[in-house]
């Protein structure tokens, strides 16, 4: 097909599989680290608040490929031999946790203060108010921006090409070296990325509209 064999397209799909794997790892890792970051950002404790804010600013101030390099080469200096997948997953976790933490902090703060107050006046404890009143409302608010950020994660996994991780971008690069058909190959890669991301952004948009209608 267009001078590229089916086997070669299959090679791209293999790369796409690892793109999805790395995205999921980045998202799960980002959630595990990002949720405590979000909670620390809204905490009244001076240290927690400052430390988490510093973490977010630090990570957001470094380009993702540089984070990839630091994790991949930096860790091996200390004698740990990390493979590209582990390094890329750690880097994606750092990156997405900083952004998700900030996104979720905003979602928690978007729940009106009067909701905390109403819970307080019913003698509920801080933790009870957070779990039963604030969190369920914040989760609803969080779905569209979180799914939207998932699209960013998927696209940004392509930076793992700098440390030689075999993902969709990397497989396209190899395939191009073998076939010298850059336009066809990279267009095919672009379409696959689009096929992964488009349903996500559509879903985020639909959910957002539904939320607005509910609140209207």
């Amino acid at each position, binding site marked *: 097909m267009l001078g590229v064999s089916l086997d070669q397209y299959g090679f791209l799909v293999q790369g796409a599989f690892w793109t999805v794997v790395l995205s999921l790892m980045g998202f799960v890792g980002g959630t595990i680290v990002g949720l405590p970051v979000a909670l620390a950002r809204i905490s009244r404790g001076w240290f927690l608040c400052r430390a988490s804010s510093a973490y977010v600013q630090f990570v957001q101030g470094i380009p993702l490929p540089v984070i990839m390099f630091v994790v991949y080469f930096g860790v091996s200096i200390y004698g740990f031999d990390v493979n590209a997948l582990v390094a890329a997953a750690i880097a994606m976790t750092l990156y997405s946790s900083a952004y998700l933490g900030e996104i979720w902090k905003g979602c928690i703060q978007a729940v009106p203060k009067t*909701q905390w107050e*109403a819970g307080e006046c*019913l*003698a509920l404890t801080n933790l*009870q108010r957070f779990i*039963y009143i604030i969190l369920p409302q914040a989760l609803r608010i969080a779905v569209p921006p979180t799914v939207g950020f998932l699209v960013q994660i998927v696209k940004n996994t392509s930076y793992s090409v700098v440390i030689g991780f075999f993902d969709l971008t990397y497989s396209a690069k190899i395939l191009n070296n073998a076939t010298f058909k850059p336009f066809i190959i990279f267009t095919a890669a672009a379409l696959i990325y689009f096929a992964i991301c488009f349903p996500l952004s559509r879903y985020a948009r639909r959910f957002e509209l539904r939320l607005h209608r509910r609140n209207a």
Partner: protein
Amino acid sequence: MTVISMNTVHTPVAPQDGAQPMVSFRDVHKSFGALEVLKGIDLDVMPGQVAALIGRSGSGKSTALRCINGLEKINDGELTVCGRNLRARDFELRELRKEVGIVFQSYNLFPHLTVEQNVTLAPRKVNGLDAAESRALAAEVLEQVGLSDKASSYPEQLSGGQQQRVAIARSLAMRPKLMLFDEVTSALDPELTGEVLRVIGKLAAGGMTMVLVTHEMAFARQVADLVVYMHQGRVWEAGKGTMLDDPQTVELRQFVGSGL
């Protein structure tokens, strides 16, 4: 001014000798930064009494009300509520909150919970009621506010008046000794005001101790044992509802005359 017809007539409760006031302000001061909002309030509300705080915006009446359940901390003076000194070292805010219910102008219902869940959340989590007990409790308090058929509705499906009645039921479910109402009808259309005031009037007739901040002068006159006119952070004039017919001060005369 909304004139409402009451199904029940409230008999004013005279303070009994020796009874402790449910709420007692003694020279209470409260400032927000440089702005002094309460400039020495003295006020007693006895068990079973209904006190209505009236006055212009900025007179300090809402602040005084919010001090009663500790939403605002007083800066000076003494405030005792349900026998608890709010400035005592061993004062437990949560214990006070179990005994004092408050209803806000903006209802503040939990939008993600049904009416029944709104009502039973605190009784279950704070007082440890089980599913059957809380269900029975919800049925009881929703009947009190006339919303038995709305238990499984969500707040957004209700009118403003209905939402406010749910908020009242939610407070009642904690079996408070004292109820506070902070301009609970100010956000409502006149036609919805009546249904909320009727519920409050019924509670008053049932002997509930209440402090309410209100702009409904006819209602205050009808239901309150004690009408308190606040002006510039002070209790300017206080007395029975009839005091509104014969104000002693120029300020109250102007306030009553302004048709509020």
